[in-house]
């Protein structure tokens, strides 16, 4: 396989690290050397030609090719089997509604939150239980990291360059979770977002850091979800009031209470839509009186509609800990879900 990228001859693994760090090609952590064979293996696994175009970033007109994405995936530690998820995630980020340039350049400092669904999770060993949002497993670690390295190297999203984040957050190293579809009767995220449950899928969302909640002192769905809604209201007061995609990470212990009471994800979203609201005047209580103006009594909802809520079943089996993952900035960027290696609702070729 002929690759187009420039090559560098280096003496050993240490020289590789220094070459990549000194050129600003890393996230500060060591990388896996992207050799011809390793990159070719990724491309072959995904059945992609090196020059296959994933898309063109519309603001700066940068073409994203399979070869460049594969190089960055290898650097992140991806095995060939991880690469299709990276391709799908990046393709989703290139959809216009994701607003890739704005989301990656903003002072708001969000990261790309990636949710894996479907059979691919088990093929890759992507775990959605213990430590789900942390260092839970190899697959989610390297897929999330591949997204960041590709942004750094292909789109020059480097701190102080295109990336103007004021503080950013640790999810910018890697921010990927697999939904725990086995330990729930709930419909998985991708199925709620219109894909067949049997396909594998990736959902991407421009997201702030997770805000952890805890409620281990009730079995009532309304009380459990009120804690999540309160955290969303806190985000609206302290960070941004604008409605957009929020993700809720609901662990097994809390899910069991909700499911025992017959609550589906649809019920969860409807409740959160009703409860996650503040009046603009509340800004005055948190030091933002200057921008309340004459709209103090105006009510703002965290979600424009219940379906903006991404409910994700994930987390270890014990503990009433969950998380609210807020949007980067309202609906300026919208979450995108795409199937991995499948074409859903496509016209058959013979038609």
């Amino acid at each position, binding site marked *: 396989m002929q690759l187009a990228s*420039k090559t*560098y001859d280096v003496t050993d693994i240490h020289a590789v690290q220094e070459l990549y760090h000194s050129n600003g090609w890393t996230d500060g952590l060591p990388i896996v050397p*992207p050799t*011809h064979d390793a990159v070719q293996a990724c491309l072959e696994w995904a059945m992609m030609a090196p020059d296959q175009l994933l898309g063109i970033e*519309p603001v700066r007109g940068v073409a994203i090719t399979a070869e460049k994405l594969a190089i960055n995936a290898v650097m992140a530690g991806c095995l060939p089997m991880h690469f299709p998820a990276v391709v799908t995630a990046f393709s989703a980020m290139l959809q216009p509604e994701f*607003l890739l340039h704005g989301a990656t350049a903003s002072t708001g400092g969000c990261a790309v939150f990636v949710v894996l669904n479907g059979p691919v999770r088990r093929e890759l060993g992507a775990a959605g239980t213990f430590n789900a949002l942390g260092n839970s497993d190899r697959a989610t670690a390297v897929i999330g990291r591949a997204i960041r390295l590709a942004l750094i190297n292909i789109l020059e999203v480097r701190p102080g360059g295109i990336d103007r984040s004021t503080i950013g957050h640790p999810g910018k190293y890697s921010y990927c979770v697999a939904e725990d579809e086995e330990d729930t009767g709930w419909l998985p995220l991708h199925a709620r977002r219109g894909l067949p449950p049997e396909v594998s899928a990736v959902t991407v969302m421009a997201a702030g850091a997770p805000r952890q909640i805890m409620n281990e002192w009730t079995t009532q769905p309304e009380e459990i979800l009120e804690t999540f809604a309160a955290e969303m209201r806190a985000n609206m007061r302290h960070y941004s009031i604008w409605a957009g995609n929020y993700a809720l990470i609901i662990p097994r212990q809390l899910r069991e209470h909700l499911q025992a009471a017959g609550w589906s994800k649809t019920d969860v979203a409807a409740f959160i839509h009703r409860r996650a609201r503040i009046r603009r005047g509340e800004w005055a209580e948190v030091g933002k009186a200057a921008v309340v103006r004459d709209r103090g009594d105006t009510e703002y909802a965290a979600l424009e509609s219940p379906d903006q809520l991404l409910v994700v079943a994930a987390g270890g089996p014990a503990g009433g800990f969950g998380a609210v993952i807020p949007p980067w900035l309202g609906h300026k960027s919208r979450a995108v879900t795409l199937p991995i290696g499948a074409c859903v609702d496509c016209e058959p070729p013979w038609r």
Partner: protein
Amino acid sequence: MALQVLDPTNETAPPLGQTAPRLASLAGKTVGFISNGKEGTKGFFAHLDRMLREEFGVADVVMRVKSNYSAPADRDIMDEIARWHAVVTGIGD
């Protein structure tokens, strides 16, 4: 062990537009402002408007605000740029 590794960057420069020739003077010219609409832009552009008119003899200042401060300028603003001699943008947070 010697290794041969690949360049992870885009390598080819994105197709940037060309910079317009600099104006010899702003006197009598029309200057456009493209604001991202953020709170911090208001005082800045108001002050710049006064400065350009009073100190540099600018004939007209046109203020336009993007509909989404994180996205490129709207098509109608881009179309209007051709009627201006100079543009100030990328300012304010």
